[in-house]
């Protein structure tokens, strides 16, 4: 029906996660007594003071409503991640999307701030992601300190990769890590999507649209048509008249 619609991956977002149980309470510390959401209520966890990354602030602010000003977009809710959570998220985003010869690192394109905006939003999908991501960041920090004696943000690249490889390339025998794998995938989805929708990311990917064209739409370039003809040749197909 609508031109803005785009296929979204079907991500299994379990809300009760065994893997997260140990860290959930810490991640949600500070929620008690606050009911600022417009979405369905999630019971506040008891406050705990031992979150390694510091507690996220209680989410505040409603959604943008059914009739926001489209010409002057603004985010009406506050960011909520603690400094420690932001540092860990930045370190994770940057190892997922590091600088290279074509484009900068994720944190330089505002990906960390976008993650904060996303997990602080008052809508049901984002609130499910909040649970997954806050618990996942805390898990990363805990694992890093216990394995390497250093915070995840301060750990060396090889240490970081050692931690991430178990989540990025899961094997069936690591069933205990299923929820961590889900965290990694969800964070990566958001980080990659946020990164490539920036001007720098679009340039890197090779998007050259969103510009007004005077006159008829030119269609594929000669180079693109030559490539397509090669493809069709390989497939044993021909362009119809």
């Amino acid at each position, binding site marked *: *029906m*609508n*031109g*803005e*619609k785009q*296929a979204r*991956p079907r991500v299994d977002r379990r809300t009760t996660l065994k893997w997260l149980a140990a860290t959930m309470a810490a991640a949600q510390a500070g929620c008690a007594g606050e009911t600022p959401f417009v979405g369905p209520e999630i019971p506040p966890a008891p406050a705990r003071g031992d979150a390694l990354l510091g507690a996220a602030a209680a989410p505040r602010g409603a*959604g*943008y*409503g*059914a*009739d*926001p000003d*489209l*010409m002057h*977009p603004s*985010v009406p809710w506050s960011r909520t991640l603690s400094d420690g959570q932001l540092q860990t998220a930045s370190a994770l985003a940057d*190892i*997922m*999307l*590091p600088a*290279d010869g074509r484009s900068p690192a994720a944190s330089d394109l505002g990906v960390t701030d976008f993650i904060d905006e996303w997990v602080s*939003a008052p809508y049901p*999908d984002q609130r499910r992601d909040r649970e997954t991501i806050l618990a996942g960041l805390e898990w990363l920090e805990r694992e890093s300190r216990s394995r390497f004696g250093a915070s995840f943000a301060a750990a060396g690249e090889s240490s970081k*990769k050692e931690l991430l490889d178990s989540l990025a390339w899961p094997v069936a025998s690591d069933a205990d890590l299923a929820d961590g794998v889900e965290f990694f*995938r969800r964070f*990566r*989805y958001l980080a*990659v*999507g946020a990164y490539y*929708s*920036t*001007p720098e*990311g679009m340039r*890197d*990917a*090779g*998007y*050259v*649209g*969103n*510009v*007004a*064209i005077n006159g*008829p*739409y*030119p*269609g*594929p*370039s000669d*180079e*693109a048509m030559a*490539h*397509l003809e090669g*493809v069709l040749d390989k*497939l044993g*197909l*021909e*362009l*119809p008249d």
Partner: protein
Amino acid sequence: MPSKGQQRYDAVIVGSGAGGGMAAWVLASKGLKVLMLEAGRHYDPKREAPMFAAYADAPLRGEGTPDKPFGFYDAAIGGWQVPGEPYSSAPGSEFMWWRSRMLGGRTNHWARNSFRMGPYDFKPRSRDGLGVDWPIGYEDIAPWYDKTEAIVGVYGSNTGLENHPDSSPGVLHDPPAPRVGELLIQAGAADLGIPCVPARRAVLTRPIGDRNPCLYATSCGRGCPIGAAFQTTTSLLPMALATGNLTIVTDAMVYELRLDRQGRADGVNYVDKASGAHAAAYGRVVVLAASACESARILLNSKSASFPDGAANSSGQVGRNLMDTVGAGMGAQFPVLENRPVYNEDGAMGLHLYIPFWLYKAQARGELDFPRGYHYELGAEGRGQPRLGMGAIAERAGGYGRKLKEDVRRYYGSYLHFTCRGEMIPNADSYCEIDPDASDRWGIPTLRFHFGWSQHERNMVAHFQATTKALIDRLGGNIAYGDVPPGEAISTGGEIIHEVGTTRMGDDARNSVTNQYGQSWDIDNLFIADGGVFASKAHKNPTLTILALAWRSSEYLAAELGRRAL
């Protein structure tokens, strides 16, 4: 009766979308005094449409939320839920009802796909014994399609294909050049004996008056301030206002007909949403164009001693025969499209090519296990503007780091999407009625929906899936999503936003609500000009037909008023 000093209009029109916009322009152009009541607020795309705005500047990268289901920049004010205006689904049913509450209604953000219904589509029962025939045939509406396409502006080509009628010479605008993904699909489809031809969309590729041709960028769903993509707020409504004969009142929530002692329509009652006050509007004729289900709701809520089951409902058919388009989708990644040369693939921000239904002969021979047709809409803007969904590429790529960035470059532009849009046959399980236990914030009783697909529709989806897999396979693709059982793949009722049939037309007052002109059998100065009058739901997207029927009905209405028959 109007109070002293209050105007009685020639026509009161409820709704400002496709049907209401067309009726207003036709009637106002004939010198009739017209009042239009719109339940939503005033809206002007020239001031409010965020053309070219970056996803990165929108909350949540512009992704859909309960507040804005099709994304932050989508023009629609409304959605699956409207605050204070609930609806319900009966136990065991699920129905999704999209409502726009704004001037121009859903025309402000529709996909602009504009396919003519063909001769078979108006006589489905004669062809396969199911559903009902329309009281008109294709030949009755063909001239109105030509006139409608000329004023709306539709790009496309005449193909001569069976049951896909041509337009008269000179009517259609030139279609935009196909893109690489569409050409690849066209070549693969041809090899399988499947046609793939220029689509028809209500998008200008040459100017009409002060409406400009498409500039091939920025989603039509955001609203089109240059007037290229058709919506009533840049076309029919300004044209009707220019006659000096149209008055528009927004934030006017109509909830019932006013009926006089003879049982004829005297006007409507509405709530002024700004003040909450109730008000009346008076007209010699009332035209309902509030959308199929909202118009049915108004009629069912218009109860009186003479109409205990609601107005215009002596047939008992108001709210019945609810249909939506059959939807399903499948997507795939194509290694042959990896790392391909960069060019601007935005195009007209919608279909350039599509696959029309091609199996009428096989169907007539009894070779298929489903009786009606479907078409394919192709998602071939592989290099469309990156947004949050780019994250899905990482799922295929796996891993992280520099390799992930290389993989994103490699896979971006290598996905194609296939969408099924099929015909639903009306069934006794699918209808809307007044919920006995619920009302909206103004106390107006709300709708309760019943909905169910039949095996006809599930078999059609299975056929679409098998055909799509064959096509993907022929092109060397890897299925990315949609390969699930037909019962799971099929859309939820209402989800395709093509709901029609709830006040159907016919040639027998005993089993239809209106005659062929949308004129109520029971109340001769009441007309219906929205999708409610559809007797069947062809797989072709309904808006063009709503517009053409509304024009035809309005000419008849004006002639009847002229000879004082109403």
